């Protein structure tokens, strides 16, 4: 159905630190297709952001990357900085949680947007302004003509995030990486911003990577979900399979930790313990210390990511069968 746009193979990201190196991403492989939303979920520090920062050459200076990331045939990880800048300018855009850090507080929306449009698309000032207005209208900024001349602090959080999305569209990207785009927004605004992203995906045939902590966000938008734990993929599959029939104990635990207004009120069943430090030795299953299904073999043998019991792939020696899921308190 979809054309694969980005194909990532054996990606690892490590950071050199004063002590042991931090392994932020450990040998992961995945792909994203045009017109598809890939949801990436997992707890803080699991490596979600660094995976996608690595693709854009945006890691901190102590970070190193290995592996391949093919975008329309170009290996992003093998490009020189200049070539990467070029591809990024043409094909990839990022949207982050806090638009205030990405916007210049001293320049109007129009000034910032026209600069990008002149840079990326070589438009003259007048045409850049017309295009900026069109993009703001595209992301449903009400009263866009007036907001074009506003400064970031004069806009609400939701409006700023729309401006960020409009700016991310200025290079007509093929791949949009949205890292917690709605985490800082109120629920009433969150749902509007998500629906704008989905509309863009549909109408422009964009590939969207949606990074979030919130299972509700991926339930609304994602076609496929990748659950990340300690720098590895714990489970990957169709959104319906992963959310309704989780096969990895970590996914089931995350779902059982989240109260849901649409489901009857039941006792929460938290996952015990805490996620590991990135410096921890990587032997066996990284989830073993917290897992309710752990067996001795789990501590010694790293489970491969493959489809054992269901359509989705899971990195687990003893995956949950669909009927276990109710016991684990997984889906509602």
């Amino acid at each position, binding site marked *: 159905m979809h054309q694969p746009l980005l194909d990532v193979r054996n990606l690892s990201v490590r950071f050199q630190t004063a002590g042991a190196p931090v392994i932020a991403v450990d040998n992961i492989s995945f792909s994203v297709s045009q017109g598809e939303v890939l949801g990436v979920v997992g707890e803080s520090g699991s490596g979600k952001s660094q995976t996608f920062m690595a693709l854009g050459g945006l890691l901190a200076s102590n970070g190193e990357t290995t592996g391949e990331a093919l975008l329309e045939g170009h290996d992003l990880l093998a490009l020189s900085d200049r070539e990467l800048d070029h591809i990024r300018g043409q094909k990839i855009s990022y949207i982050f949680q806090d638009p205030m850090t990405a916007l210049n507080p001293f320049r109007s929306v129009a000034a910032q947007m026209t600069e990008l449009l002149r840079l990326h698309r070589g438009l003259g000032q007048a045409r850049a302004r017309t295009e900026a207005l069109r993009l703001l209208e595209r992301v449903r900024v009400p009263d866009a003509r007036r907001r074009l001349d506003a400064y970031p602090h004069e806009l609400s*959080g939701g409006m700023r995030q729309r401006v960020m999305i409009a700016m991310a569209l200025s290079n007509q990207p093929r791949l949009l990486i949205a890292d917690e785009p709605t985490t800082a927004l109120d*629920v009433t605004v969150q749902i509007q911003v998500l629906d704008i992203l989905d509309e863009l995906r549909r109408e422009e045939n964009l590939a969207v990577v949606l990074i979030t902590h919130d299972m509700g966000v991926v339930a609304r938008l994602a076609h496929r979900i990748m659950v990340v734990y300690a720098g590895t993929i714990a489970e990957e599959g169709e959104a319906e399979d992963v959310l309704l029939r989780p096969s990895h104990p970590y996914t089931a635990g995350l779902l059982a930790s989240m109260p849901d207004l649409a489901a009857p009120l039941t006792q929460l069943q*938290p996952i015990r313990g805490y996620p590991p430090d990135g410096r921890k030795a990587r032997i066996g299953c990284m989830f073993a210390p917290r897992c309710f299904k752990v067996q001795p073999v789990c501590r010694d043998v790293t489970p491969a990511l493959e489809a054992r019991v269901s359509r989705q792939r899971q990195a687990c020696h003893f995956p949950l069968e669909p009927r276990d899921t109710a016991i684990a308190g997984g889906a509602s």
Partner: protein
Amino acid sequence: MTTGMEGLEVDALSITYPIGQGPFRPRLELKAVREVSLSIAPGKTLGVVGESGCGKSTLARGILRLQRPDGGTVRWNGQSISDLTDDEFRHVRPEMQMVFQDPLASLNPRMRVADIIAEPLVTHRPELSGSKRQALVAKAMERVGLLPDMARRFPHEFSGGQAQRIGIARAIVLEPGLLICDEAVSALDVSIRAQVLVLLEELQQTLGLAILFISHDLAVVRYIAHEVMVLYLGRVVEHAERDTLFANPKHPYTQALIGSVLSKDPEIERSHEVPRIGGELPSPIDPPSGCPFNTRCPLVQPICRQTMPALVVQPDGSQVACHVVEAQKAA
């Protein structure tokens, strides 16, 4: 003045921030909290919800006298704390403790965990011996699930979830009667948030805590709260028992909030219609006349632009401030 009521009682509390002061600027007022009344009995949790900027934190600050109210009273176990001198209030303050959103930022990075947790004891119970103090710290740590060997460590050695446990241990070490949690689980990861929520439930049962639980996350509030209060531009628009509020929200704003919450079930979420509430939160410096929600309300009537609806008790016991709800009741 005293009443017989145990726990917290807040009556018509209003708090105003002066802003835009300066030699050439007009003096403006931001009415952050307007005539908010509530009560929380021991062992009960009141959830406070609303969009950011609606006055939730200001309400908490007003209750703890961190912000001077311009009207209303706060009573603790029947005693008005609004009229107390600062000196007199110091004796009541240990009863009322707060847990903040950002666990690491709220802990002194140069103090060891045991000293952080002991701090309220040093301030409010200086008569305690060192060994008695240590015993109380150890007990608080055990209650929140921190291991004894963590006592000598510094905050930066802890994850967010562990740091929040330290914050809670510090808040409960004096065995307070009231715990105010201002977005206390919002910064935590899903699995750790669930741990902390379960911990708060357990502590409430063992200590008989009254909890004021402020959050913008309605699913979390439904889980933890017995009653829920919805604020909009500093005013209570709806206040009801938990089950009543979530099963039958009456105020158009409450309906919009609940209708915006995402479900983790994709089959539900794919057909979830977005509530039609227009526009954005109006400026709290210049709120709309009449009903504060009238600029966004899908049910707005001419009267809503003129007259502020009163908070009225409904047949099911909930309180709602809306003209249309009133008119429907009469019909």
